[in-house]
């Protein structure tokens, strides 16, 4: 026969969270994050492209990792959490991979974006871009609409 401890009434006590994880010096971790912030601000000031990429974006990745690991305690979180987060991140990569060729390239084999494509943001109305439709002319697909 086994004895079990009586369950504490919900809401009056704290459920065990990550109390048994490794001891962390949060203030020290914060200090390192601030130091990395200084590096990410000073690095790009040198004006060298690769230094800017490493200090701005590389350091951002390190900072995000440190926050996720030490503050969100992802290192001792259950595997299911890692998996669902990875799926969401994979969707980001998929989005980039699927759309980047169209968005970033201006021309390819047998196709080329017209001159106005990249300026569509600043053109508020379609007719200002010099549309092909003449005033009063029927739409191009009017023929198909006939019974």
């Amino acid at each position: 026969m086994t004895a079990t401890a009586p369950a504490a009434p919900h809401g009056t006590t704290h459920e065990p969270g990550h109390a048994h994880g490794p001891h962390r010096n949060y203030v020290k971790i914060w200090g390192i994050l601030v130091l990395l912030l200084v590096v990410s601000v000073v690095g790009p000031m040198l004006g060298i492209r690769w230094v800017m990429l490493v200090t701005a974006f590389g350091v951002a990745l390190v900072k995000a990792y440190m926050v996720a690991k030490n503050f969100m305690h992802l290192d001792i979180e259950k595997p299911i959490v890692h998996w669902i987060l990875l799926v969401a991140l994979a969707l980001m990569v998929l989005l980039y991979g699927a759309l980047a060729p169209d968005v970033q390239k201006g021309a390819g084999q047998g196709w080329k974006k017209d001159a106005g494509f990249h300026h569509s943001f600043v053109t508020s109305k379609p007719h200002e871009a010099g549309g092909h439709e003449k005033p009063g002319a029927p739409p191009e697909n009017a023929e198909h609409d006939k019974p």
Partner: protein
Amino acid sequence: MSVKTIATQRASMNIPTGRLAVWWVLVSEIVIFGGVLVSYLMHRLGHPEWGEQAAYTNLWAGAFNTLVLLSSSLSAVLAHQAAEKGDGPKAARLLYLTILGGLIFLIVKSFEWTHEIQEGFTLQAGGFWSYYYTAAGLHAFHVIAGMGVIAWVASSARKNQELHRVENVGIYWHFVDIVWIFLFPLLYIAK
């Protein structure tokens, strides 16, 4: 009559229900912010001229706000530590500090935006500014929402009640911090 929660622990995963729910929320947030950031990244790489527009953002304001959010994350995780030890009042005080961090962040942001709009850099000033206001605005909205939820959690933590929520709300706040960690170089540093 008291209301009782039906399930506080997912037996199959051995994870508290509330914490699992927060992670699911964050997964949907990754999809939302991920969509905006990836879309921005693609357009930014396709438009080198956006660098000239990005040069007008205030690097020091962005850096200061990063420092503020990192510090508010520190107070959030220290609040979690206090809650683990059963010290609700201390956890509440640290959560109020986190809210203060969020408030300072929003004040700096509002000054920044006011100045930029007065200079003519509105939402319609160009592709870069459209993304700038959309991404930073969406993030600011999450800061405001987080401050509200943290205030609610702190009010019960002060009475030593529902202390497990301190960790849950902290996880959310750290995520908001991480999003800003990526927004800062994308919007303020890459010129």
